[in-house]
């Protein structure tokens, strides 16, 4: 129970803008969230995706935590909501999609069996590193992490329009960079 009151105190400080308390809180709750995600039926990389969903939601609605109430039920409420959402989405996808196996990925033509994608991926990463900070962040949040504009905006502090413009410019620049290689 000491942990619970610690979390509440950290959250109250985080609401006041204390970054160190926020870092400590998110670090402390993450293993607990992993356990919740595992218990909910997620496995493998899905657990981390689920945890990240919960952390993002926690960040977006941190003002709804009432400092006079215990923190754990609030956190569990956020977690359950996000995990249920993810499980529902998985159920829907499972009903109409089939995961690709190696057999599906290996086609008759030689060109489909190249392993050059890895070097392409390295080239892409390298090109992203050369982008200006704002464009790099927009690409990372919107394209690599596949966050919604709203979530990316909440994390980056940039407006949705600014993010859209930055992502558009970044893609144009990446195209030029990769065509030149």
């Amino acid at each position, binding site marked *: 129970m000491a942990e619970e009151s610690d979390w509440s105190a950290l959250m109250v400080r985080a609401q006041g803008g204390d970054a160190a308390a926020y870092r400590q809180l998110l670090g402390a709750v993450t293993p607990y969230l992993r356990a919740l995600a595992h218990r909910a039926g997620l496995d493998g990389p899905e657990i981390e995706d689920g945890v*990240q969903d919960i952390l993002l939601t926690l960040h977006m609605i941190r003002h709804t935590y009432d400092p*006079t109430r215990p923190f754990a039920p609030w956190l569990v409420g956020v977690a359950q909501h996000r995990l249920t959402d993810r499980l529902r989405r998985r159920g829907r996808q499972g009903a109409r999609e089939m995961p690709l196996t190696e057999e599906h990925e290996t086609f008759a033509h030689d060109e489909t069996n190249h392993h050059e994608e890895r070097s392409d991926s390295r080239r892409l990463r390298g090109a992203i590193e050369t982008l200006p900070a704002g464009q790099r962040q927009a690409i990372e949040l919107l394209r690599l*992490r596949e966050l919604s504009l709203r979530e990316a905006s909440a994390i980056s502090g940039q407006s949705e329009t600014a993010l859209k413009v930055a992502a558009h410019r970044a893609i144009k620049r990446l195209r030029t960079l990769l065509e030149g290689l």
Partner: protein
Amino acid sequence: MRAMTTTDHLIESLVDHLAPVQPLAPPAVRATRLIVLATVLITLLAAARGLRADLDQRLVEPDFVVALLGSWLTGVTGTLAALSIGLPDRSRRWFLLPLPAFLVWVWGVGAGCLGHWVAIPTGAPIVADSVRCLETLVMASVPLALVLWRMLRRSRPLRAANTAWLGALAVAGFADTAHLLIHVVDPTALVLVMNLGVTGLILVGCGIVGSWRGGRLLGSPGR
């Protein structure tokens, strides 16, 4: 390991962009503000448009008093439930809070209709009153709906659809209280159809265009 590294990066990102926030006031406090606003609005509407001619007689009839109290209590409990149900640490059972008041309201109106369905005062200007009735409906519902929507949007409710239904019911309750005090023609069905029907259309429309999952209209977090 890679996924964990991404989670660590995400935490760093969130910490880097941390800004101080003002914690939301408890739902009861926020609900009280809207209830006071609704009561003031009903009073102003009654003062501006005049109380119904037969109010003195109706106020001694239990069915009418039950319907009046039921509609107002539906507004009160619906507001409290709408502001509570979207919070992460509140139960889904908040959805049931306005149910007793709603049943009392509908029962009071139904019983009143049965007992008085031919008892509209002779010569009462029903058609003209129906138009005024619609005006009152809009004047009571629209401002309350807008204020409640802004309050709900600020709370970024997790259960967006439930929140929307409860909000619509609350506004319908308050709007009908105004009607019962001002108009001879009983517009309860119209009030419910308009408020819940509009909400239903918005929910279905958002579902069709695919934005409801994010509860965008209420600012709900989602992907």
